[in-house]
């Protein structure tokens, strides 16, 4: 069966730069001297630490448990001693720290429990969800949304199709490509477990056409289950965007504010499928991931299987260090990746660590917009980035929203093609942040206004009650007096 594919609007073809790492097998990384495991590596509430400073931990041991409905637990990536539980640089452009559990490895890498295989297909969907949640699995394509929450959506809305995102449309990144090529059987197992967990009737594994080996390997491994179908999709950025993958595979568009589940769909990354396989079949939590360490500034670009919490510095060191000073150090790919501090650790959502040279960034001096409309043609959402930017420049945020600012997915296609080198995404992110700040301020002032009104009402009520009470008392007193006088009059009268 061949699936009919649908065209998406716009998109760009950035140079792929995948060859330096695509042809080399995944390699392990030596144990670093220290691991910094952030308690917040996911969208949602941070995990609550359950270990003490000085405590010995074993590999896979729970060190932070999930808090609230959207959260994920965190586990020790190796055995060793907890040295601190304190703020440390987070892999975020702000450079703001998050609380990390620092573990000094003892070098034994001893598991908390012996491996035990379970047949996942004997479990109920609910149990699968619980195991995925307990393993701390989050979306590994970069968004880091807790996977169990997504799988749990299937219990509320019927899901018919599970989409597995193997697009990997970002340049440089090849971690998913290598994973699919080297661990196809495990990935397919993970997909089948998720099918069982969501009770979906089919799984579509979408892989861009520029990864023929991965397509071949997964097709071979998928033969055991006719519900699983490997789909070759065009190599076009941003094909890996959830919205656009859904459109390509089903022809349907996700209206703003709706979830894929509303269309009977659920989308997971291939690396997430692999993590699910490990977690549900072998009871192993998510404590490592494959990271593409690449970019022109790096001496030996490689795909490395890295323990969560490994400092970027150590990771770069095990890839031969820098051949030249990088102009920019990124987490993720060059289109949507973020600038990160040097001492930040690898987290569950780290698909790549990319050190770019100035030539690779290739940005000219920002010039005036010549209204060429390349951004409009490139936008996969159908926005007019030039119009949005001109509104934002003039502080007309409402005008920018009217032009669809809130529909922007920040994919960067517009800024990639802009001949005037206008940092359009920077404009949009600024405006989005500003709108959130204004909304917060507005909400706050509304709350203050409400409180002031309530206070006024309370004061008035109290004054009224006091006056009423006084009046009542006075009336009572007068009534008593009258009664007395009447009684006296009666006495004298008789």
């Amino acid at each position, binding site marked *: *069966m061949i*699936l*009919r594919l649908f065209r998406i*609007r716009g998109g760009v073809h*950035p*140079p792929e730069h995948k060859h330096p790492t695509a042809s080399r097998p995944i390699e392990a990384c030596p144990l670093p001297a220290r691991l910094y495991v952030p308690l917040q590596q996911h969208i949602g509430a941070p995990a609550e630490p359950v270990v003490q400073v000085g405590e010995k931990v074993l590999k896979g041991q729970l060190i932070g448990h999930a808090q609230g409905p959207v959260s994920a637990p965190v586990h020790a990536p190796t055995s060793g001693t907890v040295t601190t539980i304190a703020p440390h640089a987070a892999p975020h*452009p*702000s*450079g703001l720290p998050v609380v990390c559990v620092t573990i000094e490895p003892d070098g034994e890498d001893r598991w908390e429990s012996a491996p035990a295989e379970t047949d996942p297909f004997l479990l109920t969907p609910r149990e699968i969800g619980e195991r995925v949640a307990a393993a701390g699995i989050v979306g590994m394509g970069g968004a880091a949304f807790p996977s169990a929450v997504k799988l749990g959506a299937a219990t509320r809305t019927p899901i*018919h199709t599970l989409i597995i995102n193997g697009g990997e449309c970002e*340049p440089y990144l090849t971690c998913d490509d290598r994973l699919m090529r080297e661990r196809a059987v495990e990935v397919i197992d993970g997909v089948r477990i998720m099918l069982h967990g969501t009770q979906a*009737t089919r799984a579509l594994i979408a892989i861009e056409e520029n990864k023929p080996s991965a397509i071949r390997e997964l097709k071979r491994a998928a033969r055991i289950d006719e519900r699983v179908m490997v789909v070759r999709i065009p190599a076009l950025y941003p094909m890996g965007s959830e919205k656009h993958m859904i459109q390509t595979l*089903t022809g349907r*568009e*996700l*209206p*703003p*504010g*709706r979830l894929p589940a*509303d269309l*009977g769909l659920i989308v997971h990354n291939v690396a997430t499928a692999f993590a699910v396989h490990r977690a549900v079949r072998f009871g192993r939590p998510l404590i490592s991931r494959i990271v593409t360490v690449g970019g022109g500034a790096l001496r030996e670009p490689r795909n490395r299987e890295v323990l969560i919490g490994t400092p970027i510095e150590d990771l770069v060191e095990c890839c031969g260090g820098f051949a030249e*000073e990088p102009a*920019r*150090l990124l987490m993720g790919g*060059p*289109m949507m*990746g973020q*600038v990160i*501090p*040097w001492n930040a650790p690898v987290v569950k959502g780290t698909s790549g660590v990319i050190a*770019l040279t100035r030539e690779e*960034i*290739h*940005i*000219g001096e920002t010039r*005036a*917009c*010549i*209204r*060429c*409309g390349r951004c409009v043609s490139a936008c*996969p*959402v*159908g*926005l*007019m980035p*030039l119009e949005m930017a001109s509104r934002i420049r003039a502080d007309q945020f409402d005008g920018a929203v009217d*032009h*669809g600012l809130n*529909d922007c997915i920040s994919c*960067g296609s517009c*800024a*990639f*093609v802009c*001949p*005037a*080198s206008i*940092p359009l*995404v*920077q404009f949009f992110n600024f405006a989005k942040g500003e709108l959130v700040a204004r909304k917060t301020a507005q909400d706050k002032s509304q709350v203050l206004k409400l409180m002031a009104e309530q206070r006024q009402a309370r004061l008035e009520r109290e004054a009224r009650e006091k006056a009423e009470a006084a009046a009542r008392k006075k009336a009572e007193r007068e009534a008593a007096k009258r009664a007395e006088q009447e009684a006296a009059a009666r006495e004298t009268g008789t």
Partner: protein
Amino acid sequence: MSDVYSPVAGPHTHATAGVGGIMLQVMLALVPATLFGIWLYGWPALNLFVVTLSTCAIAEALSVRIGGRSAAAALGDGSALLTGWLLAMTLPPWAPWWIGVVGGLFAVMVGKQVFGGIGQNLFNPAMLARVVLLIAFPLELTTWIAPQPLTQTGSPGFVEGLAITFTGVTPERLDAVSSATLLGHLKTEIGRGTQLTAALDGWYEPSQAWFGHMAGSFAETSALLILLGGLYLMVRRIIDWQIPAAMLGTLALLASLMHMIAPERYADAGVHLLSGGVMLGAFFIATDPVTSPSTLRGRLLFGAGCGLLVYVIRSFGGYPEGVAFAVLLMNAVTPLIDHYVRPRIYGRDIHGRPRTIASKPKPDAEKPS
């Protein structure tokens, strides 16, 4: 390493085309038609070309310096030179030097810098200058000459060329070489009541019109060379097909229709497409990114509007040629087009409302093929 960590948003890689690169490509595409024009009309044409381009460059440098910005950076984007280039191409080839100077100054200073410089102008600067020149100096702007190829004996030499451009052409010389353009000739003859076939006799030969061996502006007579340049720009993705196709298509359609209704009064599509500034207008002037809509559908509308106006002005207006007026009128409509003609946003209908999720979908709903 300080800026390694400056929290700049993505993307962290960029395509290669810069503004200067785009302008350079456009100029490259103009080279064949320009060289042909120089060959066809000789030294005076080259002089006018040099004068107009230099004026534009000086005007640009002067303007940005007054504004306190770097002249080198402004000249570096090539937009002022391109404006001068396009203006020169549309001028009568033997026009005196001051036509180039006045036109160049007006195009850059009033047409562009007064609006705020590159990207800010509402009207195409070259066309604005051309229309101003036509209205202010109608004689100089309608003095056309028959082809005087450089290689032909009797065509003015270098020194005589300088004299023609800088001190003016002598009346005797002018009498010998002047000629009406095809469109001008038709306007006069049709106005006089002459039948079209008679008026065209000896004036219009399609193959000649394709190559451009006829009286006209300095470098817009060769439809073929301009078409080649335009196709080159399309292949290099500097321009889209929408504006040229819509403009030429609309003009051809109207011309054919009117020619069918009154064959002895209205010229056919071939005459309209291959004469005057239509080819240059469609591929190089109307496609000016600054003054044309930024959506593809908007560009279709814009191009169709240009085609319609060109036909209306040529057939029913006071001037034999209407490309410059048509483009300027459509430039004025561009903000309106950009306001109303927007792409449909993902997940929303054309009015911007979120699409509704109709029914509970089933996997069989998507038909495999």
